[in-house]
């Protein structure tokens, strides 16, 4: 029971950590974390929609965190420019939100797919 209740935070944490770790290898494609989240969801079975959320939260959190950290250290120099190239009105906040959202979306659906693969 106790282990059962820890499955959700462990899933989220694992998703975030593995996403980050794979990202350290620049030669791997950017979407490697999708494969990882797919596998995590197989390994840690939850309700499919819960798996969706853990994957989305894990990836979304790490992407948001990384982008926010990089952006603060950069004084928003580049994010402001990119947020004008993309239709985001030059807002670095929106750009970080969009970044995190895209990561979360891919992470979430990858986990969901894993969950359904395992689900009996």
């Amino acid at each position: 029971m106790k282990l059962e209740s820890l499955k959700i935070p462990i899933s989220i944490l694992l998703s975030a950590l593995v996403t980050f770790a794979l990202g350290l290898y620049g030669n791997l494609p950017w979407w490697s974390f999708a494969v990882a989240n797919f596998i995590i969801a197989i390994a840690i079975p939850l309700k499919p929609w819960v798996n969706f959320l853990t994957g989305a939260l894990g990836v979304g959190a790490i992407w948001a965190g990384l982008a926010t950290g990089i952006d603060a250290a950069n004084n928003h120099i580049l994010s402001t420019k990119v947020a004008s190239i993309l239709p985001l009105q030059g807002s670095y906040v929106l750009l970080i939100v969009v970044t995190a959202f895209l990561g979360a979306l891919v992470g979430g659906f990858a986990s969901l797919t894993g969950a359904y693969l395992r689900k009996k």
Partner: protein
Amino acid sequence: MRILPFVASAIVTVGLVTVLNIQLPSGTAKTPKLGYFLSPQHGFWKNAEKVDAGFDASIVASELKGKVDVYLDDRLVPHIYADQDEDAYFVQGFLHAKFRLWQMDFQTRVAAGRLSEIAGSDKLSIDRFFRRLGMVYGAEETEKYINDNNPVMKATVDAYTAGVNAYLKQLSPEDLPFEYKLMNYTPEAWTAKKTYLFLMFMSYDLTGRAASADLQLTNTRDYLGYDLFEKLYTNQQDSLDPIIPKGTLFAKPSIVPQKPLSADSAYLKKQTAVMAINNFSIPPQAPDKNNGSNNWAVAGSKTKSGRPILCSDPHLGLNLPSLWFEVQITTPTHSTYGASFPGSPAVIIGFNDSLAWGVTNAGRDVLDYYELKFKDSTQKEYWFNGTWKATTNRQEIIKVKDSADVVENIAMTHWGPAMFDAHYQNPQSKGRHLAVKWTGHNASTGVETFYKLNRAKNFDDYLAAISLWKCPGQNFVFASKSGDIAIKQQGSFVARWDRQGDFIMPGADSSYDWQGIIPSEENPMMKNPLRGFVSSANQKSVEATYPYYLGTAASFPLYRGISVNKQLATMSQITALDMQQLQTNNYNVFAEVARPALVKFIDNAKLSYDAQKMVHEMNNWDLYNNGNSKGITAFKIIWDSVENAVWGDELAGADIPLTKPEAHVLLDQMNRDSNFSVADDIRTKGKVETLKEQVNLGIEKAAIKWKELEKDNKLTWEQFKATRVLHLTKTPSLSRLNLPIGGGVNIINATTENHGPSWRMVVHLTDEIEAYGLYPGGQSGNPGSPYYDSFVDTWAAGKYYRLLFLPLDKLKSDSRTKWHIQFNKA
């Protein structure tokens, strides 16, 4: 497994990843691969540099022969101290790549006609233009020549190339420059040929205007007829103050170019039948007419210190990343500081511990067209001196992203490549088949000129170095610690007869060929003149007594030269600060003459209220093109509008845009106050307009524009002009827009909308050199770096940085020295 939900979510996941992993269409452009681009560990976030990041590093490279220490100062200028010359160029290549990789790659792709390869068929017309002009051909000629004849230059360029590639080798994919991620391609290995292509691009930028101007002039002459043409596009410049002062005697020329007997009928007055051709290709924008520069040197007799001061500010397109990159190179053979080109070894404009040099464009015509008659559509033979002569075929294969290759088959002739033929036309070529002959096609040892200038110790070394220079022709100014000043116009200049090559020439007759290249000793030169200064500002180098024709007057702006010389003549006890103020001087010497000439014709009582207000603003103007001035805006729109009123009718009927006459042509006419028949609007039959009527008509039209500007709050000069430093892709958010800066055409501070002093340098040749300089950009090409545009505001304000040029021990302990990169051999 629940099949249906599994399949559904798998499809969604794979679909998402796929969509985020391709470039999506967005208007005419394409988005980056969004998933990749936004991934914090792969995409653009990786290019967001920490603002307080350090640059210390230790690099090991097997290509090195010895040890190299690089100290970076607080402006990120590398000071390279190398035990070996070749190692210094290896490190220069490495650092150019480290800070400017994308730009080097992009600029050489433009020169090579390879934009379509990364940007798709949109850029095909630009690529075809450069291929057919012979850019790749010229670079190959140079590469072949240097490989066969010049081992030192080969070793220099090879060392530079190895440096760029050593950087590439250690570059991880996530650290690719920002623009690669944005446009979704990857860098390729650097080659010596790319360096020569880059130099070809400079030749094009500084002499390539003729590639469109010669066609335009021909069409303008055909349209107006030669007599009217000669009146409007006269080569006479009443107020010329040449680089070599008037009255100078020239030696007897070694070549006396003979005008062919048939020239009057077959060349100057020739009428060409217009053919309809539908496969027009829009050429790239011609190089900016204002590509020019100022440079001057004052002798010790005119300075406070008794030592010469040299100044150089090349006027080119204002871009980010900048064309320039500051660097110091110190080896046992020399110690040199200045502006270098990312893409080429050595310092291009700068100084060493003995002397300083700078360049301005000579503006001489070195590109001509010859009209061909092919025997048939195979283009295997063309008519030449009464027989059919064989061509050879040069094939240029253009790769196009997401599309099939495009193959250009170019017939090579006696003159050069047949640029325009049945397969390639633009609106100005009007169906003609034209071969292009250009000194840029010839093998060039341009790199060697800079290599030797970097090491020059005295006037003789300077002369020997520049005597190798071929294209683009430049005015090399010189000053040394020992007290000499000099200027020489140097390049491969064609010994022309009057108006030879201004128009398309007959290509079937060798008597229209170039009759020789003027020997270097006969090029205009001046050393230590009594007046105590030498200068150039792209004006004609010599008056008409010089035995060779320079090219059409439109290539030689008049007024900056007058301004510079007028100021220098009166100055004394000059300091480096005085020279900075002169480089940023906004006085409008053209308006000084043109305003009173205009005012004579203005009938103020008859003008509308708005027009009177605008004329009042012009009349009360102090003649300085300062950023906050409204008077210059009034003058500018009035003058342009009057020019349109006077010339517009003559040029309006043509089906293609014609060249507008030079400003001084109208001004000279106004001052002569003669019956100026061109003033008449030929469209109004039975009525003869006078110049006075046209001036007042022009002013009323300008008043409408004035009101619009007032409404948009754009009356001050800096708002009107809106000077911008544009990213090479023209992306607004990567550019710096609406800079608060004055200046303009005809002004020493030649800053126009997107063009101007691209590197300002003042060198005081005291024992320990006192030098100042900057360019409108920053040392880093990364839009995510605080050093990307760090000089722009200082530049706009007309301020300078003191350049750090010190012996190693002093540099190491200087407070401005921030970082150290060590290079060791493996």
